[in-house]
């Protein structure tokens, strides 16, 4: 009887575990695999025909390839800027021990939960040619005619920084918080300056958090769709917008799939490169 019970429990556990696993398999792993296979086929009038590399070849045609690199550079700059601006905040919060710490953390992560479109729209409001910033600058006499803030790459970068900063602050804070303060004390006691302590002790120890945040922001900004679409004036295409155009405008599944995978490959290569950079910067030779 006990044997049967054991069996029942084992199978019972298996039974209830299936849906989630199936979900992941059917709706994430399967579609991506299908897309991968489809990128090697030709899709004409609803059916797949022969095997071909021509989709991948056409991705390397100059303008489309250029878009991928543009996205890599954008993602890189965004991640770096986020890192630069997030670090002081995370560090400051981690060394403060007031009771407002949790509250400050809460307020820092709150923008993350607010609908992204709302964020973008609020920037629209400010950066528009007849928007708040221009009106303010003119009133203060700093400029005579409004500046074209919006519809430029600059505005895209600014809003991306705004959107991804919380993503970077959290992992950094988590790692810096767990940092043993005694190490810093010890270093200072041994006669090191604060700067030396920071660069040789704190920075290397925060590497895991920094790299986690950096990679997260990098991957997410690489595939960004909304910000370039709404704030770029349709002028600059990035990987996200281009993929959507492939699928919705051209309606060519294999081509879009091929482009997606090439971009993914380049993304992974860039990530590996950035990993080396970060390691060098944080941990030294």
């Amino acid at each position: 009887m006990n044997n049967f019970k054991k069996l029942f429990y084992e199978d019972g556990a298996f039974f209830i575990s299936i849906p989630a696993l199936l979900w992941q398999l059917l709706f994430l792993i399967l579609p991506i695999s299908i897309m991968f296979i489809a990128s090697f086929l030709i899709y004409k009038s609803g059916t797949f025909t022969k095997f071909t590399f021509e989709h991948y070849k056409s991705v390397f045609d100059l303008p489309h390839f250029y878009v991928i690199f543009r996205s890599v550079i954008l993602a890189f700059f965004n991640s770096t800027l986020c890192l630069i601006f997030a670090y002081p905040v995370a560090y400051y919060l981690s060394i403060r021990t007031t009771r407002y710490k949790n509250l400050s953390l809460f307020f820092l992560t709150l923008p993350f939960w607010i609908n992204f479109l709302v964020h973008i729209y609020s920037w629209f409001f400010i950066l528009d040619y007849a928007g708040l910033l221009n009106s303010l600058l003119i009133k203060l006499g700093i400029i005579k005619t409004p500046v074209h803030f919006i519809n430029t790459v600059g505005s895209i970068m600014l809003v991306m920084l705004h959107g991804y900063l919380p993503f970077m602050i959290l992992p950094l804070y988590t790692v810096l918080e767990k940092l043993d303060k005694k190490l810093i004390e010890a270093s200072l006691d041994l006669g090191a300056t604060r700067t030396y302590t920071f660069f040789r002790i704190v920075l290397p120890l925060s590497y895991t958090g920094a790299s986690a945040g950096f990679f997260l922001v990098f991957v997410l900004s690489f595939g960004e769709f909304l910000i370039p679409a709404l704030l770029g004036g349709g002028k600059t295409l990035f990987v996200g917008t281009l993929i959507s155009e492939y699928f919705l405008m051209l309606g060519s599944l294999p081509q879009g799939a091929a482009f997606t995978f090439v971009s993914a490959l380049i993304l992974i290569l860039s990530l590996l490169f950035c990993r080396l950079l970060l390691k060098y910067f944080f941990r030294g030779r």
Partner: protein
Amino acid sequence: MIRIYSKFFIRILMVLFWILIIIFYVYSPIVTNLLPSKKTLNVYCWVDVIDENSIREFEKETGIDVNLSFYEHNFELLSKLEITQGKDYDLIFVTDFVIPLLIKANLLQPIDSSKLDFWNDIEPSLFNKEFDPGNKYSAPYQWDIYVVGYNKKLYPNGVPAKDWSLIFDRNIMPKHIGMLEESNEAFMVGAQYLFKNTNDITEEKLEKIKDLLIAQKPNVESYVDLRASDLLSSGAAPVAVGQSAYITRPMKFSKNISFYVPSEGSFAVFDSFVIPKYSDKLELIYKFLDFVNRKSSVKKITERYFYLPNRKDLLMEGKFELGSYQEIQDLLKKVSIFSTNIPIKKLNECWMEVKSY
């Protein structure tokens, strides 16, 4: 041995069971669509087409629920319709050049104009265009002409040229212009400028226009012509191309805006309602069409969104920036329509190249 074998077998059964349940859930909309539906109409259009208050009036009058869904680009519509075969939509509002493509893809059903009250009130010259001879499938609702708007304050002595060269010629083009968004619009306009007509657009011609558009790109402030009115009224762009509705909208409260119809010739679009093939709510659809084409409804839309109305009486009575009824008639005779004879795939590929430059 048998125990292990049957255990494996049972587990396979379990997996199949769950797969069946998921399949059932995933395909369930097909089943629910077969059920007799309530009195609801699903209309697919873009943002500034139908007035919300009118819809509420309609719902009150007839008890039919109307659900609006928005789309942004005509090609987006085409792709979505090809995927879903238009099965969930009851009424679609499209631009003219899409209609022959939809007819060819067998996605539309004919409109029985005898069942519509307002058919005789429509301006006759809106009928029988080449995209739908005899208007078998489409009911024209709004139409408009592409014009070039400009900011009078920034051009005190008037514009240097009243044709398409103002947006293409490097010597007179301003630093910031508002350009058109969809591929067919941009390429037709380019063709008009380069070749003075839009007949026989071959792939080579498309390449040349593509180079022209790439050369134009550094001066383009934004490709979103929906915001042309914002661009002009705020002064962000001294010149903007768009449908006359987008250009004349801000003229009400900004006296600095003016426009012209390019002398080489311009284009008109006839945005029409079409009925997807699989919709069976014909009675509801006709009721809806009758309602939105009533004089009062069309008047409200025209006054709010500035598109040109389809009704002859409103065209004659209303005051339009484009001119009197007779002037509008003359314009209608001269404008061309976006031709559908151009190779669409090549067109979109070239446009993607321009956009990704």
